[in-house]
């Protein structure tokens, strides 16, 4: 039991000792410690290396603003790089290692960079590494990349789970310090639905770190009492370990709750939950962050913000040093000295700039040993507590791009006038720096909000505390230094860099930030920005108001990407849609493919088939020779009803629909308003006022949306109603010369003869003795074919029954690949042709465009560039050498022409091996394609190493006259 620096007092639970490992060494701490406080208790001062110069660094703060103490937490796949030791709650078995060094932490080989620092000044890399040209990517950049970056990502999938959630409240209070607690209490007592969120694991904020009294008890006890009351109020959700990381539009806040990060084992529960909080009002009570002063070698381990020193002493019962010096420009310095002497810790000096005293340098290698004062004296100190004043945590007020304004009284930026709507600010975040005033302001804000929202006025008055003095005099840097003075500790930005930036013309604050990388590190410059801006203002001879500030963006503190993703991972990234025959298909050797959200059977492998081509050739051949069955449920289906349904269809399809007879189906072409084809499908008329439309699988949602647009926005007084029935009907294509014979066994009481039920007929009917069904005689394969639909609950039963009924014909199930083969053989266009870039004329469907009506897209389809006579036209292609397998995506060239874009003649859209023809066949767009049948051209596909001659032919490779489908 070492913990040599542990002292009495604090909020740690000494009855619960926890073991943890730091760089492979086991140490102990207590429940209630952070990793930082436990390391300090064990006398560890050197905890990391800086980004650029690899300077030794120690713990600088006690909170989420920490720039130095970034560690690699946990092991294996659960490793978490760049984790702030100051925010890690200690747990049994915690394992952490230091990062960003080669060799050990104490002897980092990269520390040589520090010697080269004169040559690594702001922007040095923009000025060199350009010669010889080839060296940048081969030599310089890899070196830079390898030395940049901080922690390491384990290259294994994140083993933890994450979740999202949604919360609603009247008032969101951000921060459970004095102002936040006071506000939450008042709001809760007035009956509002309140969420109180704080990033710490104990509510109270600075109350736990200071020795103030509130309502005649210690601040920490008051905080605990308020917390207890809030926890007992059913309208209050008290969320510790929760960071409100962003303010979004209309009162929506993003919050990250760390649920199991403080546990050794998450037990399969989400590690973190990302909440979307819908609030009517929000109160930002996020406190303030202390900043440093620029003086020589102000970055050594042992140099710590004064407020952090008090936090370690008062809250964690840890002495950051045995002999501590204080350097300050405000009253915090004295408060620190008082707290330290109260704990019996030695104080070697209090250096107050207001008395003209300064620290000009520090001494010590791995950590500070002494300081040198402006008057030349050397003072021994193993810790230097620095306070350069406090900066209000205005971050969330900037998330709608509001600009903070400079307030000379508090020597800091305070929230500007333009807050996110619904947000107000109280306490130190608002520049209200004294405890008593913060409590009053929090209370007052809540009372005002309650009134605003029509809730009752809360009973009681704000808690009482002393109005302690807060006096600060601006003091930014010690001048005339011979040593480097750091501004941004993590990114190694020094006062010289800021001066140089000004000298080189990078004078706007944005240029300064981008050129020097000030504030761009993982801490977003929480302890550095204001100092940097002040120095820039000094360089420019301007005031800080004139210089202005950069603004903050979400997130307030970095959030794990896994948390933003939530559950949507792996197989559950997006939902699966399954067809009604999915289970049956699985049982029958199907291989599935993704079609949007759907899983569709590609082919059904039979024993003995070696590759997919065997299966697909067999399926396609069986359809042409006998009959095949394919689940086409995924096609979009839209029920369209109303007195004006026919008129409506006539306006949304480019071809005529007004006079479609009842009991008939028509192929329809849909254009966008710009005249380009975007979808095709069939629509069946079941009655005078009832139609059933099908769309392509891919466009089902888009077509429905567009139809609703037309119905509600363009023609609001047409009586027409839409409802999607895609999932409701299990629909099967039954195709092939034996399809009629098969369906005759299936369909009840319907004459399927060619006369009674011809090509493009439809009917509502029943199957297998009474199950309701719809039958459409349509064909996508060119064969005699039908589509039969039954309510989806019968889908599984239906596929089994169809296969059984088809046994005598040796019916096969066929998948999307065979479906593709059949449609390419037949020359039907699909997604590869209707790409949203093609016109009806290109597709060979120009004749369908009605000239006698207005429908969406018709007008603009007539523009000249879309109607050039030498434009692309759909054609068919076959290899001259019939054994060649064609490539989709090949471009066409005239033989003898050079292979360049100027001579491009078009491209192959779809190819398939045609078992029917015994050769590979293709569809494609070719300039003047319809006029060039019989020509031989090149199909050139360099990315596939293919360059073959093909013969241009009709796209209808099989049964060009359409005899079969009408038979």
């Amino acid at each position, binding site marked *: 039991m070492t913990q040599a620096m542990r002292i009495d007092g604090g909020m740690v639970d000494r009855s619960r000792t926890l073991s943890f490992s730091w760089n492979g060494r086991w140490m102990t701490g207590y429940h209630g410690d952070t990793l930082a406080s436990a390391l300090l208790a064990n006398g560890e001062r050197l905890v990391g290396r800086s980004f650029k110069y690899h300077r030794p660094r120690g713990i600088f703060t006690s909170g989420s603003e920490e720039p130095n103490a970034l560690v690699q937490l946990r092991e294996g796949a659960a*490793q*978490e*790089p760049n984790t702030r030791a100051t925010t890690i709650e200690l747990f049994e078995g915690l394992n952490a290692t230091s990062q960003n060094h080669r060799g050990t932490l104490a002897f980092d080989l990269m520390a040589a960079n520090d010697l080269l620092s*004169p*040559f690594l*000044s702001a922007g*040095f*890399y*923009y*000025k*060199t590494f*350009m*010669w010889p040209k080839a060296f*940048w*990517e081969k030599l310089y*950049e890899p070196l830079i*990349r390898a030395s940049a*970056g*901080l*922690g390491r990502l*384990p*290259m294994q*999938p*994140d083993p933890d789970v994450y979740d999202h959630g949604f919360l609603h409240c009247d008032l969101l209070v951000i921060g459970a310090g004095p102002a936040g607690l006071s506000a939450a209490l008042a709001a809760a007592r007035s009956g509002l639905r309140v969420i109180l969120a704080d990033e710490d694991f104990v509510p109270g904020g600075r109350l736990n770190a200071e020795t103030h009294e509130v309502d005649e008890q210690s601040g920490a006890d008051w905080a605990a009492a308020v917390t207890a009351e809030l926890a007992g109020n059913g309208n209050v959700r008290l969320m510790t370990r929760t960071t409100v990381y962003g303010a*979004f539009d209309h009162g929506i806040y*993003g919050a990250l709750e760390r649920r199991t990060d403080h546990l050794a084992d998450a037990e399969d529960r989400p590690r973190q939950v990302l909440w979307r909080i819908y609030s009517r009002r929000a109160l930002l009570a996020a406190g303030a962050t202390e900043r440093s002063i620029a003086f020589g070698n102000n970055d050594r381990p042992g140099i710590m913000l004064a407020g952090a020193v008090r936090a370690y002493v008062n809250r964690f019962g840890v002495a950051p040093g045995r002999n501590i010096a204080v350097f300050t420009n405000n009253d915090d310095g004295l408060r620190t000295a008082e707290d330290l002497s109260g704990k019996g810790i030695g104080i070697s000096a209090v250096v107050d700039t207001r008395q003209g005293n300064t620290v000009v340098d520090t001494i010590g290698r791995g950590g500070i040993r002494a300081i040198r004062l402006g008057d030349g004296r050397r003072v021994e100190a193993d810790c230097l507590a620095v306070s350069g004043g406090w900066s209000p945590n205005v971050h969330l007020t900037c998330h*709608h*791009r509001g600009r903070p304004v400079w307030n000379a009284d508090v020597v800091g930026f305070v929230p500007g006038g333009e807050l996110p709507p619904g947000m107000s600010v109280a306490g130190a975040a608002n520049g209200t720096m004294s405890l008593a005033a913060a409590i009053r302001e929090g209370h007052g804000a809540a009372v005002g909000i309650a009134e605003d929202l029509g809730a009752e006025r809360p009973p009681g008055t704000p808690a009482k505390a002393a109005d302690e003095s807060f006096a600060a005099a601006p003091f930014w840097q010690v001048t005339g230094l011979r040593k480097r003075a750091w501004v941004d500790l993590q990114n190694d930005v020094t006062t010289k860099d800021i001066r140089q930036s000004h000298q080189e*013309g990078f004078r*706007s604050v944005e240029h300064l930030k*981008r*050129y020097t990388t000030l504030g761009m590190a*993982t801490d*977003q410059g929480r302890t550095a920005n204001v100092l940097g801006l002040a120095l820039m203002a000094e360089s420019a001879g301007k005031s800080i108001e004139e210089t202005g500030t950069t603004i903050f*963006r979400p*997130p307030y503190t*970095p*959030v794990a990407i896994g948390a*933003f993703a*939530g559950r949507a991972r*792996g197989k*559950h*990234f997006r939902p699966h849609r399954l067809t009604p025959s999915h289970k049956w298909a699985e049982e029958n050797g199907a291989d599935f*493919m*993704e079609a949007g959200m759907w899983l569709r059977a590609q082919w059904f492998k039979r024993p003995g088939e070696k590759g997919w081509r065997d299966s697909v050739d067999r399926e396609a051949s069986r359809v042409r020779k006998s009959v095949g069955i394919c689940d086409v449920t995924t096609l979009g289906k839209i029920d369209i009803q109303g007195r004006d349904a026919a008129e409506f269809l006539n306006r949304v399809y480019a071809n005529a629909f007004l006079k479609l007879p009842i009991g008939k189906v028509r192929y329809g072409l849909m254009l966008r308003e*710009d005249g380009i084809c975007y979808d095709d499908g069939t629509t069946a008329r079941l009655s005078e006022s009832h139609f059933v439309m099908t769309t392509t699988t891919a466009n089902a949602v888009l077509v429905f949306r567009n139809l609703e647009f037309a119905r509600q926005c363009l023609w609001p007084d047409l009586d027409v109603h839409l409802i999607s029935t895609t999932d409701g009907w299990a629909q099967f294509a039954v195709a092939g010369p034996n399809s009629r014979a098969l369906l005759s066994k299936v369909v009840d009481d319907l004459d399927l003869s060619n006369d009674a039920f011809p090509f493009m007929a439809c009917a509502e009917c029943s199957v297998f003795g009474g199950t309701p069904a719809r039958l459409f005689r349509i064909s996508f394969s060119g064969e005699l074919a039908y589509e039969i639909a039954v309510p989806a609950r019968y889908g599984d039963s239906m596929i089994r029954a169809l296969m059984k009924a088809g046994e005598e014909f040796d019916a096969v199930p066929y998948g999307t690949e065979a479906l593709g083969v059949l449609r390419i053989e037949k020359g039907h266009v699909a997604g*590869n042709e209707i*790409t*949203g870039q093609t016109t009806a004329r290109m597709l060979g469907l120009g004749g369908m465009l009605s000239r006698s009506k207005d429908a969406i897209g018709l007008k603009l389809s007539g*523009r000249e*560039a*879309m109607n050039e006579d030498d434009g692309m036209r759909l054609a068919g292609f076959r290899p001259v050498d019939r054994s060649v397998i064609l490539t*989709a*995506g*090949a*471009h066409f060239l005239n033989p003898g022409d050079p292979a360049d*874009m100027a001579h491009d003649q078009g491209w192959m*859209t779809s190819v398939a091996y045609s078992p029917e023809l015994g050769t590979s066949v293709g569809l494609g767009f070719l300039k003047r394609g319809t006029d060039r049948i019989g020509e031989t051209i090149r199909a*050139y596909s360099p*990315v596939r190493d293919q360059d073959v001659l093909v013969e241009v032919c009709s796209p209808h490779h099989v049964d060009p006259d359409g005899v079969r489908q009408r038979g």
Partner: protein
Amino acid sequence: MRYSALRILKEGLTGNRGWQPVWREPEPKPEYDIVIIGGGGHGLSTAYYLAKEFGERSVAVLEKGWLGSGNIGRNTTIIRSNYLLEGNQPFYEFSLKLWEGLEQDFNYNAMVSQRGILNLCHSDPQRDAFVRRGNAMRLSGADAMVLGPDEIRRMCPYLDHENARFPITGALWQPRGGTVRHDAVAWGYARGADQRGVDIIQNCEVTGIDIKDGRCLGVETAKGPIKAKKVAMCAAGSSSRVAALAGMRLPIESHVLQAFVSEGLKPVLPGVITFGAGHFYVSQSDKGGLVFGGDIDGYNTYAQRGNLPVVEDVCEGGMAIMPMIGRARLLRMWGGVMDMSMDGSPFIDKTHVEGLYLNAGWCYGGFKATPASGYCYAHLLATGQPHETARSFRLDRFRQGAMIDEKGVGAQPNLH
């Protein structure tokens, strides 16, 4: 001042006191031959090439904020020329070639890094489309390969090959694609233009465009009127607002594209990876941050910020395709305002007003186009003729029906 390793050495040894301002801070003159509205990447590169390639001596760039504050300062730094259509491909390939010689050309290390760009696909039709595109790239003299699942597995073992909702079936690979240090591009062009006499005037918002009898005579600015023989609008993100000063309505909407960067990490990703099915693309900066993004938010906006649904959507895509990034933390998110045009392609053209020119509509592809956009715009301004690679970027193309619609989604800007 010429930059070199020797100069760094000399300055380092003398306390870095000799560095000169990278650009002057001139007051505007009463008149210029050419005034460029917008000191973003395209405006600065236009000025640079006007001075360097076309010998223009009287050029001013007017910037309402600080130079480089447009989308050049807020993008995801990717360069590539993997376009499909005849109107686009040669232009972007021209741009890539300019990127390849840029640093030596303007003596500024913008860290052009050709690490390659990998576009993943998940189905046969997508792969067919990539083959077609790859072939189009090869026909235009660009580099392209179509990879199979095994090659991708070797190249990127950390992708989710096993448990993915959308299994990877192939990819389009352009080795010459990559990333560039975006701010340095603005600074390098600004420095090069300034050295050649271009006046770059910051904090000088254009408040009016003087037009008389169908002819543009100059502009009104926050710093007074400036006459010009030619006025070149180049303010993507604000194009509609600037064009409105000339009474024009454009085929453009303004939208926000969010981008994200993680905390710094030791090298993880070599190049750029795009996961179209998951609306996610990513690269890693030289400082170690994962720089990533996805789709635009979808609503018209001039506010440079977005909302949560897209943030979550993008991160879902990231976790789906590379589940090892779960514990990397998102450090910052920001939004850039895009000129989303009606077909997703840009405009570099004269307008109906004589002497008034337009460069606009870059959607979210403006960064990679920076050199060629500047070069081609300079060509048009100096010679009156469109550059051969930018002939299709006409403002009247929708009247003709000559859309350049890479995505095939039509006149709906938020889908491009």
